[in-house]
């Protein structure tokens, strides 16, 4: 007998306590409830489908002079709702088959600390705060050079078929394994070779991701006394919060975050005053190399300091800002509804000659926008903290799949914000200094020389914008963050404050992004250090002891040196830095996704659900094709702008020919730097792609083996019968309400503990 809402293979073990109400909604009742299409339900879904369809028509088919931002919002939200209701449900019923009669790790391993059942709505917010960062804010901005349609399509379709699927699957499988990490699951499912390759790939990928995130901050703060002051102030603010929480009022998290937020606002306003004084400008105008070294030193110190002093308070502040600002931006976009003048698809999509990031739509769109559509990094979060806090198995759909939909929505808003600024200004800000010369005249000449229809950039527009946002110049502020900040500032000033407030909003947005990134840098370095210690521990057991200071410092130093070297390389790159490195970021992130999906596919095959194996196989195939072909282009392409080795050989040849300048490199030293940088970038590309191919191949072998044998070893924890109940989704169904009521009348001594109330 098969039940659609749960695999009942452990029926003998999962006998519920007769003194308790049922721990799961009766599968048949749930099934009936779902099949019952009342006229109201039909009307709602027809309405959503029509609104979504109409919005997509406005975006994709109607070619007016402009398109209103509201259609992006409606197209995204309606598509998410439909995908969540129908596709994620299909995954739940056919592939994962969660069983609410089974206790989750939060129940059977409950310790009130790490393993603590948490209300699903709270955990949704928690999980979202952990997965969303600067990634979905930056990628869509850079991809906007190809027009608004390719990015929008990829963000929305990518998330429903790939990104949210990955997060959901990884979270579910990790939950069934007591919250095991992706690395441990890879080792178990793929064996030593696949597991080791996955571990090394993860480490290498973390290094590159931290380096490029740090590069985004450096580019946003370079030559900006206002930005440097206000972002630097986050350190004393966080330290103060840490001491406050430790010694003055432990546990008053919201209170201290509010205080921190007020101080943060003062730091932004104060930055404005300081940038108007001569001494302030003198002290806080730093070149990019100095800032990069500052971040490297900061990264090391932050990773060895105790968590309570810097990392934990900074994380509270970052979560606070994240929820507040994203909510605020959504409201502002809906109220101001900016008109977007960018064409649907630009010539750069096919020529690949875009100045922001090189390469044509396939495959480079799909690696430029990683977070927001498909982000491998999430697999590290979805296996770990969150699965240890899930109250009931069926909630993974809401938290895993639904959480990723929310991040995708953030990416859509970032895209809208970037698209709402003038195209000429967009290209002036995002073309590297190698192209614009870093001057207003150079930028005007370069952008107008691109031959884009409808783009006529004037030097007044650039200097006016710089004055409005309180910066010396906005030319070649690459990395995406400053562009997004201008976009956010434009949208927010239309709502609050007018152009007089634009400088505040600009620096507010810069602060917001820098805060996320610095938190990711701290946490990334720390996580990477533990992974490294664990790996070295296989050979030198002493390294396993994470409280051993020397080992901890040494491993931290190795990790910081790794990302620091790439950061310095990016900052000093004569070719521009972000445009050469960003593809590597996206490729690394998507390769991690491919690894995670490969592990999930092997697990699905071992569970014996072959008919629906395409659910992980489809996004895996796509991610593998995209990233491997992008890597191959980066390695083998003869076009110097795209292929790292082609660039390497071109500059090497020029050096050997005794030339003194080549391309945008004006000196022999610069040419040597290009040769060095392209060597590192090319080598990293090879390392990533080789490791990933190994992991994917071992996963495919494991899958085929399982399919032939009709299944494989079950690596799940032994099932334990649950003694608690909670609804699955955001909205409780009538059957769930009824069951909840039964639990509510239970004597309090019989009722198992629930947290979050």
């Amino acid at each position, binding site marked *: 007998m098969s039940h659609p809402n749960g695999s009942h293979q452990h029926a003998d073990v999962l006998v519920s306590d007769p003194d308790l109400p049922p721990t799961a909604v009766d599968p048949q009742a749930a099934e009936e409830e779902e099949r019952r299409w009342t006229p109201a339900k039909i009307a709602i879904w027809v309405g959503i489908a029509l609104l979504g369809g109409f919005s997509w028509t406005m975006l994709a088919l109607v070619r007016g002079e402009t398109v209103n931002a509201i259609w992006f919002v409606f197209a995204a939200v309606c598509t998410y709702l439909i995908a969540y209701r129908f596709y994620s449900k299909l995954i739940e019923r056919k592939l994962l088959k969660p069983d609410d009669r089974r206790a989750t790790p939060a129940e059977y391993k409950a310790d009130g600390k790490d393993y603590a059942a948490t209300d699903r709505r709270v955990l949704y917010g928690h999980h979202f705060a952990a997965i969303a960062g600067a990634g979905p804010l930056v990628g869509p901005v850079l991809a906007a050079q190809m027009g608004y349609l390719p990015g929008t399509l990829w963000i929305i379709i990518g998330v429903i078929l790939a990104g949210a699927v990955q997060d959901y699957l990884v979270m579910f499988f990790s939950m069934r394994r007591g919250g095991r990490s992706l690395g441990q699951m890879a080792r178990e499912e793929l064996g030593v070779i696949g597991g080791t390759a996955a571990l090394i790939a993860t480490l290498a990928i973390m290094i590159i991701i931290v380096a490029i995130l740090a590069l985004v901050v450096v580019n946003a703060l370079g030559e900006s006394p206002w930005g440097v002051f206000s972002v630097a102030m986050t350190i004393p603010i966080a330290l103060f919060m840490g001491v406050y929480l430790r010694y003055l009022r432990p546990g008053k998290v919201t209170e201290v975050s509010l205080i921190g937020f007020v101080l943060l606002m003062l730091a932004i306003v104060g930055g404005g005053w300081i940038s108007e004084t001569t001494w302030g400008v003198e002290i806080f105008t730093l070149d990019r190399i100095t800032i990069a070294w500052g971040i490297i030193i900061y990264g090391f110190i932050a990773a060895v300091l105790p968590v*309570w002093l810097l990392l934990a308070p900074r994380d509270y502040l970052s979560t606070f800002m994240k929820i507040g600002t994203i909510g605020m931006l959504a409201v502002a976009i809906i109220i101001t509804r900016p008109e977007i003048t960018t064409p649907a698809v630009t010539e750069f999509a096919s020529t690949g000659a875009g100045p922001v990031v090189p390469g044509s739509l396939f495959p480079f769109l799909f690696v430029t926008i990683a977070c927001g559509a498909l982000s491998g990094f999430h697999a590290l979060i979805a296996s770990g903290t969150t699965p240890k806090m899930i109250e009931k198995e069926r909630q993974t759909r809401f938290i895993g799949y639904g959480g990723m939909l929310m991040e995708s929505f953030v990416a859509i808003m970032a895209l809208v914000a970037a698209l709402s600024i003038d195209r000429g200004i967009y290209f002036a800000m995002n073309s590297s200094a190698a192209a614009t010369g870093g001057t207003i005249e150079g930028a005007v000449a370069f952008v107008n020389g691109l031959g884009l229809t409808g783009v006529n950039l004037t030097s007044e527009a650039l200097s006016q914008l710089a004055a409005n946002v309180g910066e010396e110049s906005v030319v070649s502020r690459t990395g995406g963050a400053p562009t997004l900040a201008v976009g956010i500032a434009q949208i927010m000033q239309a709502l609050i404050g007018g152009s007089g407030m634009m400088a505040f909003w600009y620096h507010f947005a810069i602060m917001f992004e820098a805060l996320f990134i610095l938190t990711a840098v701290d946490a990334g370095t720390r996580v990477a250090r533990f992974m490294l210690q664990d790996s070295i521990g296989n050979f030198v057991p002493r390294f396993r002891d994470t409280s051993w200071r020397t080992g901890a410092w040494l491993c931290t130093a190795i990790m910081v040196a790794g990302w620091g070297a790439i950061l310095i390389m990016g900052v000093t790159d004569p070719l521009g830095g972000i445009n050469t490195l960003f593809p590597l970021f996206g490729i690394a992130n998507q390769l991690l996704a491919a690894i995670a999906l490969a592990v999930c596919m092997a697990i699905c095959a071992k569970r014996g659900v072959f008919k629906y194996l395409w659910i992980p196989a489809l996004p895996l195939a796509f991610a593998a094709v995209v990233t491997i072909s992008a890597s191959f282009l980066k390695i083998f392409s003869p076009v110097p702008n795209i292929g790292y080795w082609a660039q390497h050989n071109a500059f090497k040849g020029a050096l050997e020919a005794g030339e003194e300048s080549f391309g945008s490199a004006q000196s022999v030293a610069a040419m040597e730097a290009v040769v060095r940088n392209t060597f590192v970038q090319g080598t990293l590309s090879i390392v990533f792609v080789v490791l990933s191919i190994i992991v994917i191949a071992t996963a495919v072998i494991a899958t085929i083996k399982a399919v032939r044998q009709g299944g494989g070893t079950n690596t799940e924890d032994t099932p334990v019968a649950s003694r608690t109940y909670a609804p699955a989704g955001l909205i409780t169904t009538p059957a769930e309400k009824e069951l909840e009521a039964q639990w509510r009348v239970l004597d309090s001594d019989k009722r198992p503990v629930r947290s979050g109330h």
Partner: protein
Amino acid sequence: MSINLALGRAREAARGIAWLFKGVMGENAYQAYLDHHAGTHDAEPPMTEREFWRDKTDRQDANPEGRCC
């Protein structure tokens, strides 16, 4: 709807939002720990609030959580 009822609803909604917000920020971790402790019928007294938060950050020291990009 009477004014009192409307006010009551508004208060309830505000409480709900505050509860959700505090939950997402992680403020109710100590309460969750106390609830758990009470349910286990452990003879040992639970950690005090100060001890609990120290223990929590110390655990994070030994077991870092990733933060995404």
